[in-house]
């Protein structure tokens, strides 16, 4: 690739002109999230189509991934949803996207019925975000690395910030910075995934002021650097899902209620506190008490899914499948979540061709709480093998392996080598 010299103003303008010979993307078809309804899901989505003006400010280009097509086929069998125009419906479920990138203000034009849960929308395919300044993230469900930092959580825990209700006038990142699944998911951050005792739903009441940058603990700095600060400690409540196949969630031992804890847990292993010097206020203490259990256990899954919190949705779906292995919706949801997350994680890891290297000294790695599967995967990382090769030799479900690799990277256990050699297979 050429190009590092900044062009002069003139040449730049000339350069921009070059775009004119490139056909504009067919926004309606290409760059929208496509709404899909699974015939397995009860109701069709009921969002109204936005205005054309609004389309310009619609979410960032979101490719229609293969599985969307699969879902489309499913949806096609369902005449109702497939008849609906594409591009207008999103899975925000009554939530507002954050202010648009051009500052048009809130998406008033999208009139969305409050909290409908019927849509089974296909999540946007994650973008190949540059790994380090990727500021979208699902929450940390299933990956219990926690640094309790109240200031990261929007001050007082009760003082919840939900980006969905962000005041348009307040400075907010462009939409492109926050793929909406994650924006929405931000509100779930720190709830299900972190294994708190079931907090009740909290509707956000106060508009947020602004995003806060996290203070970064040096060791696991990567993790927080690559994440937006949780907008709310517990805007949505979940029954904490149990640990399932390597996703360590709330079946972990109860969190200590005070002091700062940092946990690294990948896989089935139980969480072990890792000594650290910093001390922070406990967050768990101020969490509200759990609500009564929901009637339909799948509601929770659906809600998380709709909110774009695929990781938690997956954990919940898997937990549900553990008791009801034949639950078709749960199985389907789990599959979609896995696929979505896998794509997202892979793109964060920079793609399958990237070569991984262990970045943490062995004695530090020992402090992590890894299960033997994660330990095995870690042993496959040799500084010469590509992600693809590691996945080939991992001999575990690909999603699981990808998730662990992703988590490893977030933890700073591994790093991606800058220059991948050509893929070898």
């Amino acid at each position, binding site marked *: *690739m*050429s*190009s590092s*010299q*900044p*062009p002069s103003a003139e040449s730049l303008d000339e*350069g*921009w002109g*070059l*775009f*004119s010979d*490139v*056909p*504009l*993307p067919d*926004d309606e078809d*290409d*760059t929208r999230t496509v709404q899909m309804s699974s015939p397995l899901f009860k109701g069709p989505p009921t969002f109204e189509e936005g205005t054309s003006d609004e389309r310009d400010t619609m979410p960032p*280009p979101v*490719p*229609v*991934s293969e599985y969307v097509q699969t879902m489309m086929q499913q949806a096609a069998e369902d005449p109702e949803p497939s008849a609906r125009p594409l591009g207008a419906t999103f899975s925000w479920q009554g939530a507002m996207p954050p202010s648009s*990138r*051009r500052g048009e203000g809130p998406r008033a034009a999208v009139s969305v019925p409050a909290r409908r849960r019927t849509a089974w929308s296909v999540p946007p395919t994650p*973008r*190949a*975000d*540059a*790994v380090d300044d990727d500021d979208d993230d699902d929450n940390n469900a299933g990956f219990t690395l926690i640094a309790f930092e109240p200031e990261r959580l929007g001050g007082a825990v009760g003082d919840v910030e939900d980006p969905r209700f962000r005041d348009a006038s307040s400075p907010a*990142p*462009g939409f*492109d*910075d926050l793929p909406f699944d994650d924006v929405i998911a931000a509100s779930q951050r720190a709830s299900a995934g972190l294994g708190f005792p079931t907090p009740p739903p909290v509707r956000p009441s106060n508009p947020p002021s602004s995003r806060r940058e996290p203070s970064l603990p040096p060791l696991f700095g990567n993790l927080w650097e690559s994440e937006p600060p949780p907008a709310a400690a517990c805007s949505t409540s979940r029954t904490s899902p149990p640990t399932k196949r390597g996703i360590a969630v709330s079946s972990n031992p109860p969190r200590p209620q005070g002091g700062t804890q940092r946990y690294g847990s990948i896989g*089935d*292993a*139980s969480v072990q506190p890792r000594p650290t010097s910093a001390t922070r206020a406990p967050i768990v203490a101020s969490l509200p008490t759990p609500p009564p259990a929901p009637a339909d256990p799948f509601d929770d899954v659906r809600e998380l899914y709709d909110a774009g919190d695929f990781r938690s949705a997956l954990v919940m779906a898997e937990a549900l499948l553990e008791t009801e292995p034949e639950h078709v919706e749960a199985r389907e949801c789990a599959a979609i979540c896995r696929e979505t997350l896998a794509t997202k994680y892979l*793109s964060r890891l*920079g*793609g399958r*061709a990237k070569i991984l290297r262990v970045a943490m000294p*062995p004695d530090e790695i*020992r402090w992590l*709480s*890894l299960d*033997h*599967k994660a*330990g*095995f995967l*870690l*042993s*496959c990382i040799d500084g*010469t093998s590509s992600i693809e090769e590691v996945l*080939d*030799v*991992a*001999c575990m479900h690909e999603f699981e392996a990808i998730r662990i690799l992703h988590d490893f990277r977030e933890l700073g256990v591994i790093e991606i080598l800058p220059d991948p050699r*050509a*893929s*070898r*297979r």
Partner: protein
Amino acid sequence: MERVIGIDLGTTNSCVAIVEDGVPTVIPNRGGYKTTPSMVAITEAGKRLVGHIAKRQAITNAENTVYAAKRLIGRKWSSPQVKNAILTASYKIVEGPHGDVRIQLRDKTYSVPEISAMVLQEMKLFAEDYLSEPITKAVITVPAYFNDNQRQATKDAGQIAGLDVIRIVNEPTAAALAYGFGKNVEKTIAVFDLGGGTFDISVLEIGSGGVFKVIATAGDTFLGGEDFDARIIDWLVQGFREQHNVDLRQDRMALQRLKDASEKAKCELSTSLETEINLPFIISSNRNEALHLQRTLTRAELDTLCEDLVERCIEICKQTLEDARLDRDEIEDVVLVGGMTRMAKVQDSVRDFFGREPCKGVHPDEVVALGAAVQGAALVDESKQMILLDVTPHPLGIMTFGSNFEELIPQNTTVPTSRSKIFTTSRDNQTAVKILVMQGEHDKATDNELLGEFILTGLRRAAKGQVEIEVTFEINSDGIVSVSAKDLETGQQQSIQVTASSGLTKEEVGDMMESAKDYLVERRSTDEFEGIRQEAEKLISEIERMFPQVEQIVASSDFGRDAIGKARGIVERSRQAIVKKDAAAMKEQMESLTRTHRMFKGVVARPQG
């Protein structure tokens, strides 16, 4: 002049070499290693893995990983070796349509030559990558004891892999060549080859004119480096059990790590006196705690652990010399071959037994391939002095009255050759004779291998012993054996050509060759796509990273806004192409992507005022 590669298609590892400017050189694989595990696996997703990557999952995906296919190549389903393999192999061995052996991997069965071809194809690719030219000719080595069927099956494997196998060479012969023997030396040497799964001892008589006669060969096809690894694994497992009361063998992942670590430790101990084995999170305890394995192994401990294995090798050497009625001091040189001979203990034992310092190259696991390359170069270059002549590996003959074996061509006869013998009828008024062509060392014909049979009819009715029939064996330079029988009275003649059978028909080999080619084409396009995809993803991610900044900078002008939209379109179309794996569309987008990237960088780099 076309270049010829030499391939050591080993039981555990394969190696490819070429003569470059007169110097035999080993060609490294893409990972930079000079040997490549002769392993093939099919992943759950149906992907083919060959070499190191297959080895790394050999235990965790044991049912679908083929190792030591060489023990099966060219063997009949009914052979004791196959029966034995069925009991010990982790992959599924099934009977083929011609009484041959097939291997089942996931939902497909493969012939053994096909499996070997996957390894050979990989070796061929390494060579082509390295030399930047297509390679079609190869010399492949086989153990000295391989019979015609095994040699033919190896040739078939080469053909399936798209190689014209111009010569099959005995491994000890190739090794001797690599060590420089064969150049006007007349010597008797011993080749001590301890590889990963097999041990071979061969005594060669190197004659003037480049004739290498294998005067004795013996070994153990189940004795090699793997056994040494197993000793270390046992030691680790036992120690761990004592410490934690957990059996590591129960878990495949743990076992895979143990195996890899044991082999690594063993190799390290060839150069150092002590090594640490460190396997964190190897297993979870009963109380669900992650357990770590950490132990130190010394060379002395390893020597003790493996003492009997080395002794077994020496014992076989002793027996072989006795059988060949050779004295130790008749052996003028001892050549070390095989990765395991790097172990000091092995070298010491060989030295002690033969009473002389063995010739050891730096890389004993590469010498066979080097020798094959030397032979390959000599075969195509007439100016080369060295002509290595093939010898028949086993005696050839026919069955005579009373189930006796009558040898016509003795073992180690240089080919091409032709020998005749006159036989007579064994019964009165016998009008036809049946010629049973056989190969083997046994006097009793039935103990030898039947290669083919034919009948010569129309003989004159006469008392037994009256009618004379001349039987001629002819072996051409390709090793094809023709046998003819001629009624000396009438001149009437019958003949057959004995072509060794690999267990595959010509058509099957042809079909397998086609599918191997198809696989290659598919893989090439995948690789090409992968290359573009990587590049595109890199650009996309950089462009996306710059989006907010660029947007901010150009927000003020409508013009810029338009450009942003277009840039998004480009990114989006590229992404679509990636998702759809549409190589053509992706190539199309690359230019726009590159331009967008350049543009963005320009905007971002422009000083902001």
